[in-house]
Protein backbone atom coordinates (compact mmCIF):
# COMPACT_ATOMS: atom_id res chain seq x y z
CA UNK A 1 0.00 0.00 0.00
CA UNK A 2 1.23 3.44 -0.96
CA UNK A 3 0.18 5.27 2.16
CA UNK A 4 -0.90 4.04 5.53
CA UNK A 5 -3.80 5.82 7.23
CA UNK A 6 -1.57 7.36 9.86
CA UNK A 7 0.64 9.08 7.30
CA UNK A 8 -2.37 10.24 5.36
CA UNK A 9 -3.71 11.74 8.55
CA UNK A 10 -0.44 13.56 9.17
CA UNK A 11 -0.40 14.96 5.64
CA UNK A 12 -3.96 16.18 5.94
CA UNK A 13 -3.07 17.92 9.17
CA UNK A 14 -0.03 19.63 7.70
CA UNK A 15 -1.93 20.65 4.59
CA UNK A 16 -4.60 22.20 6.72
CA UNK A 17 -2.35 23.99 9.18
CA UNK A 18 -0.08 25.34 6.44
CA UNK A 19 -2.94 26.75 4.42
CA UNK A 20 -3.30 29.87 6.55
CA UNK A 21 0.40 30.86 6.53
CA UNK A 22 0.60 30.24 2.79
CA UNK A 23 -2.54 32.25 2.13
CA UNK A 24 -1.11 35.03 4.28
CA UNK A 25 2.10 34.96 2.26
CA UNK A 26 0.06 35.25 -0.90
CA UNK A 27 -2.23 38.01 0.32
CA UNK A 28 0.37 40.05 2.19
CA UNK A 29 3.33 39.66 -0.17
CA UNK A 30 2.85 37.76 -3.44
CA UNK A 31 -0.20 39.64 -4.71
CA UNK A 32 0.69 43.14 -3.44
CA UNK A 33 4.23 42.74 -4.73
CA UNK A 34 2.93 41.75 -8.16
CA UNK A 35 0.34 44.53 -8.30
CA UNK A 36 2.64 47.30 -7.09
CA UNK A 37 5.56 46.35 -9.31
CA UNK A 38 3.25 45.93 -12.29
CA UNK A 39 1.87 49.45 -11.87
CA UNK A 40 5.32 50.98 -11.41
CA UNK A 41 6.55 48.86 -14.31
CA UNK A 42 3.78 50.17 -16.57
CA UNK A 43 4.78 53.76 -15.89
CA UNK A 44 8.43 52.93 -16.62
CA UNK A 45 7.32 51.04 -19.72
CA UNK A 46 5.26 53.93 -21.08
CA UNK A 47 8.13 56.38 -20.76
CA UNK A 48 10.61 53.86 -22.16
CA UNK A 49 8.38 53.17 -25.15
CA UNK A 50 7.96 56.90 -25.80
CA UNK A 51 11.71 57.43 -25.43
CA UNK A 52 12.36 54.73 -28.02
CA UNK A 53 9.83 56.28 -30.39
CA UNK A 54 11.10 59.82 -29.87
CA UNK A 55 13.33 61.50 -32.39
CA UNK A 56 15.95 62.39 -29.76
CA UNK A 57 18.88 60.05 -30.27
CA UNK A 58 20.08 60.15 -26.65
CA UNK A 59 16.69 59.11 -25.31
CA UNK A 60 16.32 56.39 -27.91
CA UNK A 61 19.71 55.00 -27.09
CA UNK A 62 19.22 55.05 -23.31
CA UNK A 63 15.89 53.24 -23.63
CA UNK A 64 17.39 50.63 -25.93
CA UNK A 65 20.28 49.97 -23.58
CA UNK A 66 17.96 49.57 -20.60
CA UNK A 67 15.63 47.16 -22.40
CA UNK A 68 18.53 45.17 -23.79
CA UNK A 69 20.27 44.86 -20.41
CA UNK A 70 17.13 43.73 -18.59
CA UNK A 71 16.02 41.30 -21.27
CA UNK A 72 19.51 39.95 -21.72
CA UNK A 73 20.09 38.99 -18.08
CA UNK A 74 18.26 36.59 -15.74
CA UNK A 75 15.77 38.13 -13.34
CA UNK A 76 17.31 36.18 -10.47
CA UNK A 77 20.72 37.68 -11.20
CA UNK A 78 19.18 41.16 -11.30
CA UNK A 79 17.62 40.60 -7.88
CA UNK A 80 20.91 39.30 -6.47
CA UNK A 81 22.80 42.32 -7.76
CA UNK A 82 20.33 44.68 -6.10
CA UNK A 83 20.05 42.82 -2.80
CA UNK A 84 23.42 41.12 -2.29
CA UNK A 85 25.60 43.13 -4.68
CA UNK A 86 24.83 46.76 -3.91
CA UNK A 87 25.63 46.51 -0.17
CA UNK A 88 29.28 45.93 -1.08
CA UNK A 89 29.35 49.50 -2.46
CA UNK A 90 27.50 50.84 0.53
CA UNK A 91 23.94 50.71 -0.79
CA UNK A 92 21.89 48.46 1.46
CA UNK A 93 18.28 47.89 0.55
CA UNK A 94 15.77 45.87 2.57
CA UNK A 95 14.38 42.72 0.99
CA UNK A 96 10.96 44.10 0.07
CA UNK A 97 12.12 47.40 -1.50
CA UNK A 98 14.87 45.48 -3.30
CA UNK A 99 12.26 43.12 -4.74
CA UNK A 100 10.03 46.04 -5.75
CA UNK A 101 12.92 47.76 -7.54
CA UNK A 102 14.02 44.57 -9.29
CA UNK A 103 10.61 43.45 -10.47
CA UNK A 104 9.54 46.97 -11.54
CA UNK A 105 12.63 47.41 -13.68
CA UNK A 106 12.09 43.98 -15.16
CA UNK A 107 8.42 44.50 -16.00
CA UNK A 108 9.20 47.99 -17.30
CA UNK A 109 11.55 46.62 -19.92
CA UNK A 110 9.30 43.83 -21.14
CA UNK A 111 6.12 45.91 -21.10
CA UNK A 112 7.82 48.78 -22.94
CA UNK A 113 8.27 46.54 -25.95
CA UNK A 114 4.57 45.61 -25.82
CA UNK A 115 3.50 49.25 -25.57
CA UNK A 116 5.88 50.31 -28.31
CA UNK A 117 4.51 47.64 -30.66
CA UNK A 118 0.94 48.64 -29.77
CA UNK A 119 1.62 52.30 -30.53
CA UNK A 120 3.23 51.36 -33.84
CA UNK A 121 0.24 49.18 -34.73
CA UNK A 122 -2.13 52.18 -34.77
CA UNK A 123 -2.57 53.30 -38.39
CA UNK A 124 -0.79 56.47 -39.52
CA UNK A 125 -4.15 57.91 -40.53
CA UNK A 126 -5.08 58.25 -36.86
CA UNK A 127 -2.10 60.52 -36.19
CA UNK A 128 -2.89 62.50 -39.33
CA UNK A 129 -6.56 62.93 -38.48
CA UNK A 130 -5.57 64.25 -35.05
CA UNK A 131 -2.89 66.54 -36.48
CA UNK A 132 -5.35 67.87 -39.03
CA UNK A 133 -7.59 68.99 -36.16
CA UNK A 134 -4.65 70.97 -34.81
CA UNK A 135 -3.61 68.59 -32.03
CA UNK A 136 0.04 68.44 -31.04
CA UNK A 137 2.00 65.25 -30.39
CA UNK A 138 1.12 65.01 -26.71
CA UNK A 139 -2.59 65.60 -27.28
CA UNK A 140 -2.61 63.07 -30.10
CA UNK A 141 -0.93 60.44 -27.96
CA UNK A 142 -3.10 61.02 -24.96
CA UNK A 143 -6.47 61.30 -26.67
CA UNK A 144 -6.17 59.22 -29.81
CA UNK A 145 -3.22 56.83 -29.89
CA UNK A 146 -2.80 55.53 -26.34
CA UNK A 147 -6.48 54.67 -25.80
CA UNK A 148 -6.36 52.53 -28.93
CA UNK A 149 -2.94 51.12 -28.09
CA UNK A 150 -4.22 50.17 -24.64
CA UNK A 151 -6.76 47.84 -26.17
CA UNK A 152 -4.15 46.19 -28.34
CA UNK A 153 -1.80 45.70 -25.40
CA UNK A 154 -4.21 44.16 -22.90
CA UNK A 155 -3.64 40.51 -23.90
CA UNK A 156 0.17 40.65 -23.94
CA UNK A 157 0.29 42.81 -20.80
CA UNK A 158 -1.97 40.34 -19.02
CA UNK A 159 0.48 37.62 -19.87
CA UNK A 160 3.28 39.74 -18.47
CA UNK A 161 1.31 40.22 -15.26
CA UNK A 162 0.60 36.51 -14.89
CA UNK A 163 4.29 35.73 -15.41
CA UNK A 164 5.11 38.37 -12.83
CA UNK A 165 2.85 36.74 -10.22
CA UNK A 166 4.75 33.49 -10.68
CA UNK A 167 8.14 35.21 -10.80
CA UNK A 168 7.55 36.77 -7.37
CA UNK A 169 8.51 33.34 -6.01
CA UNK A 170 12.10 34.36 -6.84
CA UNK A 171 11.83 37.01 -4.12
CA UNK A 172 12.09 34.12 -1.64
CA UNK A 173 15.77 34.00 -2.55
CA UNK A 174 16.28 37.57 -1.37
CA UNK A 175 14.49 36.85 1.90
CA UNK A 176 11.05 38.30 1.15
CA UNK A 177 8.56 36.23 3.11
CA UNK A 178 6.17 35.74 0.23
CA UNK A 179 4.18 32.59 -0.25
CA UNK A 180 6.89 30.31 -1.61
CA UNK A 181 9.31 31.26 1.14
CA UNK A 182 6.62 30.40 3.67
CA UNK A 183 6.25 27.00 2.01
CA UNK A 184 10.02 26.46 2.20
CA UNK A 185 10.08 27.43 5.86
CA UNK A 186 7.27 25.07 6.79
CA UNK A 187 8.74 22.24 4.74
CA UNK A 188 12.07 22.72 6.49
CA UNK A 189 10.41 21.81 9.80
CA UNK A 190 8.47 18.73 8.69
CA UNK A 191 10.29 17.55 5.51
CA UNK A 192 7.03 17.26 3.56
CA UNK A 193 8.50 19.00 0.52
CA UNK A 194 6.22 17.45 -2.05
CA UNK A 195 3.12 18.40 -0.10
CA UNK A 196 4.10 21.99 0.65
CA UNK A 197 5.44 22.81 -2.79
CA UNK A 198 2.41 21.28 -4.45
CA UNK A 199 0.18 23.28 -2.17
CA UNK A 200 2.03 26.46 -3.12
CA UNK A 201 1.77 25.53 -6.80
CA UNK A 202 -1.99 25.09 -6.48
CA UNK A 203 -2.37 28.50 -4.89
CA UNK A 204 -0.37 30.12 -7.74
CA UNK A 205 -2.61 28.29 -10.16
CA UNK A 206 -5.80 29.53 -8.49
CA UNK A 207 -4.52 33.13 -8.52
CA UNK A 208 -3.57 32.92 -12.19
CA UNK A 209 -6.88 31.32 -13.04
CA UNK A 210 -8.74 34.29 -11.61
CA UNK A 211 -6.39 36.70 -13.35
CA UNK A 212 -7.17 35.08 -16.70
CA UNK A 213 -10.85 35.57 -16.01
CA UNK A 214 -10.33 39.24 -15.22
CA UNK A 215 -8.25 39.57 -18.39
CA UNK A 216 -11.18 38.28 -20.44
CA UNK A 217 -13.49 40.85 -18.89
CA UNK A 218 -11.15 43.75 -19.47
CA UNK A 219 -10.66 42.71 -23.09
CA UNK A 220 -14.39 42.64 -23.66
CA UNK A 221 -14.88 46.02 -22.10
CA UNK A 222 -12.13 47.65 -24.12
CA UNK A 223 -13.22 46.13 -27.41
CA UNK A 224 -16.76 47.46 -27.32
CA UNK A 225 -15.98 49.66 -30.32
CA UNK A 226 -14.73 47.01 -32.72
CA UNK A 227 -16.64 44.50 -34.76
CA UNK A 228 -16.51 40.99 -33.37
Amino acid at each position, binding site marked *: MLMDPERLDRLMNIAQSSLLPLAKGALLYTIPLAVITFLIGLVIALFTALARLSSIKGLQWTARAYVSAIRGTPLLVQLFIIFYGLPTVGITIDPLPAAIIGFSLNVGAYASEIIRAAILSIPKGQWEAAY*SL*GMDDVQTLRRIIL*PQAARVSVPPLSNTFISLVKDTSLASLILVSEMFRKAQEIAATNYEFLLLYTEAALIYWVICFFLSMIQGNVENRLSRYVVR
Partner: protein
Amino acid sequence: MLVVEKLRKTFGNHEVLKGVHLTVKKGEVVVIIGPSGSGKTTLLRCLNVLEMPDEGTVTIDGKQLQFANKPSKKEITNFRRLTGMVFQAYNLFPHMTALENVMEGPMTVKRLNKHEAKEKAEQLLAKVGLKDHMHMYPFQLSGGQQQRVGIARALAMEPKVLLFDEPTSALDPELVGDVLKVMKDLANEGMTMVVVTHEMRFAREVANEVIFFDEGMIIERGHPEQLFTHPKHDRTRQFLKRIQ
Protein backbone atom coordinates in the same frame (compact mmCIF):
# COMPACT_ATOMS: atom_id res chain seq x y z
CA MET B 1 -8.04 83.30 -48.81
CA LEU B 2 -5.54 80.65 -49.92
CA VAL B 3 -2.40 81.46 -51.86
CA VAL B 4 0.16 78.80 -52.75
CA GLU B 5 3.47 79.85 -54.28
CA LYS B 6 6.29 77.80 -55.76
CA LEU B 7 5.40 74.72 -53.75
CA ARG B 8 7.93 71.93 -54.25
CA LYS B 9 8.06 68.47 -52.72
CA THR B 10 10.48 65.67 -53.46
CA PHE B 11 10.37 62.10 -52.14
CA GLY B 12 13.87 60.68 -52.48
CA ASN B 13 14.75 61.71 -56.01
CA HIS B 14 11.17 61.76 -57.23
CA GLU B 15 9.91 65.33 -57.59
CA VAL B 16 6.21 65.03 -56.86
CA LEU B 17 5.30 68.74 -56.77
CA LYS B 18 7.20 70.87 -59.25
CA GLY B 19 6.50 74.40 -58.11
CA VAL B 20 2.74 74.72 -57.74
CA HIS B 21 1.00 78.11 -57.77
CA LEU B 22 -2.59 78.30 -56.72
CA THR B 23 -4.98 81.00 -55.56
CA VAL B 24 -8.38 80.35 -54.09
CA LYS B 25 -10.65 83.26 -53.17
CA LYS B 26 -12.90 83.32 -50.16
CA GLY B 27 -16.03 81.24 -50.75
CA GLU B 28 -14.64 79.61 -53.88
CA VAL B 29 -14.73 75.90 -54.63
CA VAL B 30 -11.78 74.59 -56.60
CA VAL B 31 -11.91 71.04 -57.93
CA ILE B 32 -8.65 69.30 -58.79
CA ILE B 33 -8.68 66.41 -61.24
CA GLY B 34 -5.80 64.43 -62.66
CA PRO B 35 -4.36 60.95 -63.11
CA SER B 36 -3.47 58.71 -60.21
CA GLY B 37 0.04 59.38 -58.93
CA SER B 38 0.14 62.93 -60.28
CA GLY B 39 0.57 64.42 -56.80
CA LYS B 40 -2.95 65.61 -55.92
CA THR B 41 -2.95 63.99 -52.49
CA THR B 42 0.54 65.28 -51.80
CA LEU B 43 -0.59 68.81 -52.69
CA LEU B 44 -3.49 68.70 -50.22
CA ARG B 45 -1.27 67.14 -47.54
CA CYS B 46 1.23 69.95 -48.02
CA LEU B 47 -1.50 72.56 -47.54
CA ASN B 48 -2.40 70.84 -44.26
CA VAL B 49 1.34 70.34 -43.53
CA LEU B 50 0.89 66.60 -43.03
CA GLU B 51 3.69 66.55 -45.58
CA MET B 52 6.50 69.04 -45.24
CA PRO B 53 7.15 70.80 -48.57
CA ASP B 54 10.79 71.44 -49.44
CA GLU B 55 10.18 74.94 -50.75
CA GLY B 56 7.52 77.51 -51.31
CA THR B 57 4.92 79.31 -49.24
CA VAL B 58 1.32 78.80 -48.30
CA THR B 59 -0.74 81.75 -47.12
CA ILE B 60 -4.14 81.26 -45.56
CA ASP B 61 -6.24 84.16 -44.33
CA GLY B 62 -3.17 86.37 -44.24
CA LYS B 63 -1.03 83.93 -42.26
CA GLN B 64 1.98 82.65 -44.14
CA LEU B 65 4.22 79.62 -43.74
CA GLN B 66 7.57 79.64 -45.58
CA PHE B 67 8.81 76.12 -45.90
CA ALA B 68 12.36 76.96 -46.87
CA ASN B 69 12.95 78.32 -43.31
CA LYS B 70 11.89 75.08 -41.65
CA PRO B 71 8.93 76.21 -39.52
CA SER B 72 8.84 74.92 -35.94
CA LYS B 73 6.42 72.25 -34.73
CA LYS B 74 4.39 74.87 -32.93
CA GLU B 75 4.10 77.06 -36.02
CA ILE B 76 3.00 74.05 -38.03
CA THR B 77 0.41 72.99 -35.45
CA ASN B 78 -1.02 76.51 -35.36
CA PHE B 79 -1.06 76.74 -39.13
CA ARG B 80 -2.91 73.44 -39.42
CA ARG B 81 -5.82 74.89 -37.48
CA LEU B 82 -6.57 77.12 -40.49
CA THR B 83 -7.45 74.14 -42.66
CA GLY B 84 -9.71 71.14 -42.22
CA MET B 85 -9.00 67.83 -43.92
CA VAL B 86 -11.47 65.23 -45.11
CA PHE B 87 -9.65 61.98 -45.84
CA GLN B 88 -10.32 59.40 -48.50
CA ALA B 89 -10.35 56.66 -45.83
CA TYR B 90 -12.37 58.83 -43.34
CA ASN B 91 -9.84 58.18 -40.54
CA LEU B 92 -12.47 58.51 -37.83
CA PHE B 93 -11.35 57.75 -34.29
CA PRO B 94 -12.69 54.21 -33.79
CA HIS B 95 -12.80 54.38 -30.00
CA MET B 96 -15.18 57.34 -30.00
CA THR B 97 -18.81 57.71 -31.01
CA ALA B 98 -19.75 59.98 -33.90
CA LEU B 99 -20.55 62.70 -31.38
CA GLU B 100 -17.25 62.27 -29.54
CA ASN B 101 -15.35 62.34 -32.83
CA VAL B 102 -16.83 65.75 -33.60
CA MET B 103 -16.37 67.05 -30.03
CA GLU B 104 -12.74 66.00 -29.83
CA GLY B 105 -11.11 68.88 -31.71
CA PRO B 106 -13.08 71.67 -30.02
CA MET B 107 -12.49 70.16 -26.56
CA THR B 108 -8.83 69.23 -26.86
CA VAL B 109 -7.59 72.00 -29.11
CA LYS B 110 -9.99 74.90 -28.58
CA ARG B 111 -10.57 74.05 -24.91
CA LEU B 112 -14.33 74.34 -25.18
CA ASN B 113 -16.11 72.78 -22.23
CA LYS B 114 -18.01 69.57 -22.70
CA HIS B 115 -21.38 71.25 -22.80
CA GLU B 116 -20.44 73.77 -25.51
CA ALA B 117 -18.63 71.17 -27.56
CA LYS B 118 -21.55 68.80 -27.38
CA GLU B 119 -24.07 71.42 -28.43
CA LYS B 120 -21.94 72.39 -31.40
CA ALA B 121 -21.28 68.77 -32.40
CA GLU B 122 -24.96 67.95 -32.26
CA GLN B 123 -25.72 70.86 -34.58
CA LEU B 124 -23.06 69.80 -37.03
CA LEU B 125 -24.16 66.18 -37.04
CA ALA B 126 -27.74 67.26 -37.63
CA LYS B 127 -26.51 69.38 -40.50
CA VAL B 128 -24.83 66.40 -42.19
CA GLY B 129 -27.98 64.33 -41.63
CA LEU B 130 -26.74 62.14 -38.80
CA LYS B 131 -28.86 63.33 -35.90
CA ASP B 132 -30.05 59.78 -35.24
CA HIS B 133 -26.58 58.25 -35.43
CA MET B 134 -24.76 60.44 -32.96
CA HIS B 135 -24.13 57.77 -30.39
CA MET B 136 -22.90 55.11 -32.78
CA TYR B 137 -19.31 54.05 -33.15
CA PRO B 138 -17.68 54.32 -36.58
CA PHE B 139 -17.86 50.56 -37.16
CA GLN B 140 -21.65 50.77 -36.82
CA LEU B 141 -21.90 53.35 -39.61
CA SER B 142 -21.86 52.96 -43.39
CA GLY B 143 -18.98 54.47 -45.35
CA GLY B 144 -21.13 57.40 -46.42
CA GLN B 145 -22.17 58.08 -42.84
CA GLN B 146 -18.58 57.83 -41.64
CA GLN B 147 -17.47 60.32 -44.25
CA ARG B 148 -20.18 62.74 -43.20
CA VAL B 149 -18.96 62.44 -39.60
CA GLY B 150 -15.49 63.17 -41.01
CA ILE B 151 -16.82 66.37 -42.59
CA ALA B 152 -18.58 67.40 -39.38
CA ARG B 153 -15.40 66.70 -37.41
CA ALA B 154 -13.39 68.97 -39.72
CA LEU B 155 -16.08 71.70 -39.63
CA ALA B 156 -16.12 71.69 -35.83
CA MET B 157 -12.73 73.40 -35.87
CA GLU B 158 -14.14 76.23 -38.00
CA PRO B 159 -11.37 76.07 -40.60
CA LYS B 160 -10.86 78.84 -43.13
CA VAL B 161 -10.41 76.31 -45.93
CA LEU B 162 -11.72 72.78 -46.14
CA LEU B 163 -9.63 70.23 -48.05
CA PHE B 164 -11.19 67.07 -49.48
CA ASP B 165 -9.06 64.20 -50.79
CA GLU B 166 -11.27 61.99 -52.98
CA PRO B 167 -13.94 61.98 -50.28
CA THR B 168 -16.27 59.63 -52.16
CA SER B 169 -13.91 57.29 -53.95
CA ALA B 170 -13.98 54.64 -51.19
CA LEU B 171 -17.79 54.62 -51.15
CA ASP B 172 -20.36 52.34 -52.71
CA PRO B 173 -22.03 54.24 -55.56
CA GLU B 174 -25.40 54.54 -53.82
CA LEU B 175 -23.77 56.29 -50.84
CA VAL B 176 -21.89 58.91 -52.85
CA GLY B 177 -24.93 61.18 -53.29
CA ASP B 178 -25.42 61.89 -49.58
CA VAL B 179 -21.82 62.98 -49.16
CA LEU B 180 -21.85 65.15 -52.27
CA LYS B 181 -25.06 66.79 -51.11
CA VAL B 182 -23.44 67.78 -47.82
CA MET B 183 -20.47 69.21 -49.74
CA LYS B 184 -22.77 71.11 -52.07
CA ASP B 185 -24.64 72.62 -49.13
CA LEU B 186 -21.34 73.74 -47.63
CA ALA B 187 -20.33 75.34 -50.90
CA ASN B 188 -23.63 77.19 -51.07
CA GLU B 189 -23.07 78.50 -47.55
CA GLY B 190 -19.84 80.07 -48.74
CA MET B 191 -17.26 77.61 -47.43
CA THR B 192 -13.90 77.87 -49.19
CA MET B 193 -13.09 74.39 -50.47
CA VAL B 194 -10.35 72.57 -52.37
CA VAL B 195 -11.66 69.23 -53.57
CA VAL B 196 -9.79 66.43 -55.28
CA THR B 197 -12.47 64.32 -56.91
CA HIS B 198 -13.47 62.58 -60.10
CA GLU B 199 -17.15 63.34 -59.63
CA MET B 200 -17.65 65.36 -62.80
CA ARG B 201 -21.22 66.28 -62.03
CA PHE B 202 -20.16 67.76 -58.72
CA ALA B 203 -17.42 69.70 -60.47
CA ARG B 204 -19.83 71.05 -63.08
CA GLU B 205 -22.52 72.02 -60.61
CA VAL B 206 -20.43 73.34 -57.73
CA ALA B 207 -16.91 74.29 -58.76
CA ASN B 208 -15.92 77.86 -59.54
CA GLU B 209 -12.77 76.55 -61.10
CA VAL B 210 -11.45 73.16 -62.21
CA ILE B 211 -7.76 72.40 -62.26
CA PHE B 212 -6.20 69.63 -64.30
CA PHE B 213 -3.14 68.39 -62.47
CA ASP B 214 -0.51 66.10 -63.98
CA GLU B 215 3.05 65.12 -63.09
CA GLY B 216 3.26 67.56 -60.21
CA MET B 217 2.09 70.59 -62.14
CA ILE B 218 -1.08 72.47 -62.96
CA ILE B 219 -1.53 71.82 -66.68
CA GLU B 220 -4.73 73.71 -67.19
CA ARG B 221 -7.34 75.58 -65.21
CA GLY B 222 -10.66 77.10 -66.03
CA HIS B 223 -14.36 77.32 -65.53
CA PRO B 224 -15.76 73.76 -65.39
CA GLU B 225 -17.89 74.12 -68.50
CA GLN B 226 -14.99 75.50 -70.50
CA LEU B 227 -12.42 72.98 -69.25
CA PHE B 228 -14.68 69.97 -69.74
CA THR B 229 -16.01 70.89 -73.17
CA HIS B 230 -13.10 72.82 -74.69
CA PRO B 231 -9.89 71.66 -73.00
CA LYS B 232 -6.85 73.49 -74.36
CA HIS B 233 -4.28 70.77 -73.77
CA ASP B 234 -4.03 67.33 -75.32
CA ARG B 235 -3.24 65.77 -71.97
CA THR B 236 -6.42 67.20 -70.47
CA ARG B 237 -8.43 65.95 -73.42
CA GLN B 238 -6.99 62.45 -73.16
CA PHE B 239 -7.59 62.33 -69.42
CA LEU B 240 -11.20 63.48 -69.79
CA LYS B 241 -11.81 60.89 -72.48
CA ARG B 242 -10.47 58.14 -70.24
CA ILE B 243 -12.64 58.94 -67.25
CA GLN B 244 -15.91 59.51 -69.09
